[in-house]
């Protein structure tokens, strides 16, 4: 089996070769219950997800809007936990060895799990990277070495408030891809403006060769297509988790999004 980080790099290389942006789908582990969460996760690649973000449930998700908050609470209520999220990922890896999976969550459950043990177990379960929303570069020294040792990319976030002065701090030690937060605000509330995203992505590209995924505020196929013209990947989360009680509807939306993302650049040329 290839080293975990290879999956993210390989996927972005393949997307570049195809000349299109990727679709990153965010779903919450254990939401709305273990069985349906597994069905949702297992069906994402066939529905058109290029990369998967698997949310780790947390009781106090400060950076998330109502949809993801509700998803986290549903997961916890149904018995979800960090350990079970890793088990869900390990089960997924029995059916899929190529789709990159990035675990996304908050630091406290990882800190309590033990950063070193968490990185080891996450890599063993088949994770390729980590996004820890409330762990800025200034604080991530207690996770980064363990992530690197386990072969996990620690994906950094840049936002509209990350100016040129701060960008080098964010990029230093970043790996896998850069996650650009398109809006000021929490997940699933405001809509991302494609022209502003285009400017921001162009600005960031001058400082890094990492692929840039754009998320927060992409709700539907037209929105995804607009972002896919500029970014290397676009992330959809809140709109998906809102459908977690109906896995087939969720996969249906992923198919629509995938079609929009795949057609985005050809349409622009035409």
């Amino acid at each position, binding site marked *: 089996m290839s080293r975990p980080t290879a999956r993210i790099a390989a996927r972005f290389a393949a997307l570049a070769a195809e000349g299109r942006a990727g679709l990153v789908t965010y779903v919450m582990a254990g939401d709305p219950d273990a069985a349906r969460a597994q069905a949702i996760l297992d069906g994402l690649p066939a529905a058109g997800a290029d990369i998967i973000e698997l949310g780790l*449930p947390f009781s106090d998700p400060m950076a998330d*809007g109502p949809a993801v908050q509700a998803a986290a609470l549903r997961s*916890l209520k149904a018995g979800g936990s960090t350990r079970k999220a890793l088990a869900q990922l390990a089960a997924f890896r029995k059916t899929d060895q190529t789709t990159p999976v990035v675990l996304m969550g908050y630091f406290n459950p990882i800190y*309590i799990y033990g950063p070193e043990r968490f990185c080891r177990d996450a890599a063993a379960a088949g994770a390729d990277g980590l996004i820890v929303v409330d762990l*800025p570069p200034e604080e991530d020294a207690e996770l980064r070495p363990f992530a690197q040792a386990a072969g996990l990319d620690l994906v950094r976030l840049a936002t509209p408030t990350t100016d040129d002065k701060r960008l080098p701090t964010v990029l230093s030690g970043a790996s896998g891809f850069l996650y650009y*937060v398109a809006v000021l605000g*929490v997940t699933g509330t405001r809509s991302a403006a494609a022209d502003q995203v285009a400017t921001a992505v162009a600005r960031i590209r001058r400082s890094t060769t990492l692929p840039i995924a754009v998320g927060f505020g992409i709700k539907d196929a037209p929105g995804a297509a607009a972002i896919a013209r500029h970014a290397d990947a676009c992330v959809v989360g809140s709109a998906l988790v809102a459908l977690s009680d109906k896995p087939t509807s969720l996969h249906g939306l992923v198919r629509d999004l995938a079609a929009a993302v795949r057609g985005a650049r050809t349409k622009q040329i035409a």
Partner: protein
Amino acid sequence: MNQINSFRAGPDESGHFGLFGGRYVSETLMPLILEVERAYMAARKDPAFQKELDYYLAHYVGRPSPLWFAERLTKILGGAKIYLKRDELNHTGAHKINSCMGQILLAQRMGKRRIIAETGAGQHGVATATVCALFGLPCTVYMGATDIARQAPNVFRMKLLGAEVKPVTSGTATLKDAMNEALRDWVANVEDTYYIIGTVAGPHPYPMMVRDFQSVIGKEAREQFLAAEGKLPDKLVACIGGGSNAMGLFHPFLDDRDVSMDAVEAAGLGLESGKHAASLQGGRPGVLHGNRTFLLMDEDGQIDEAHSISAGLDYPGIGPEHSWLHDIKRVKYVAATDDEAIEGFKLLSRTEGILPALEPAHAVAHVARIAPALPKDYTIVMNLCGRGDKDIFTIGERLGVKL
């Protein structure tokens, strides 16, 4: 710590008190947090800023607050000599306004035009709404729906002062959820908004900044006590939720090794019941709301619901500097239950003619527990950080008082 022999040198440059503190916030907030830090460090060194703050504290807040020798309470308990630092006499009825005044002056310096805050008991919300009315700034206060129900008088006060009170129904609908919601608002409105945090928690520089503004309590108490007794007190006592009133009283005394300090956490229905808000005695280190500190949580790191009859202490965390002081054992952390707080409330009301808020009623309960066995020349200063008017309905109901 750069001064090895001082307990007052923290935090370090990255905002840590030993293992605790720090800046655990999303990237959107990071530049703003750094900007608040720069602005505060500049203001802290600016004599004009301190002069302006002193003016408002003296002429608007009503400082210095008296240090009252509680003679009848002392006699009835029959042991140690008890003084009360009367911060409940401040405008708005609690210590919270000390920090709100400092922070709104800072917000003005930073050119921020909109203020947000979280509140538990509503005292911080009222103090924030008050300074916003005074300076003509729009104010939004996030308050848990559970707390809105049990602290109705303060909700009315905030609304009458022109603040928008936004009920928070997510999570447990109490103080921690109000703080989550305020942080979400801030992320969405970073450009024009300043977040007035009510306690010595949150990301650096808040724990340091709120402590500095609240330290006026301890500085005054030190001078007043020296004038009254010609020595320093033997012990300081304060209640603790997030810990701002305790930090404010304790900090100026931290290097006076002979002054012992007891901080009283809310034991709710009892520490062994699991239904309490005693983060230091029932929790362990974790990361929430921008800092590492002792938290109540389950084995997966999910934050637990706190429990206390007092909305102001009903928080599953505690300021990071307290976690550090606990670790190095400079301050002793004890607890009082809901029932003991009610007894403390009754005791102070009937011996001194002062209705304490339910929060400092926990401190009264601890004083009542330890004073009788102490010698008569042993002196205690207790921070009476808020008045009980807001709690009369809760207490009346609990005691079955008929009107």
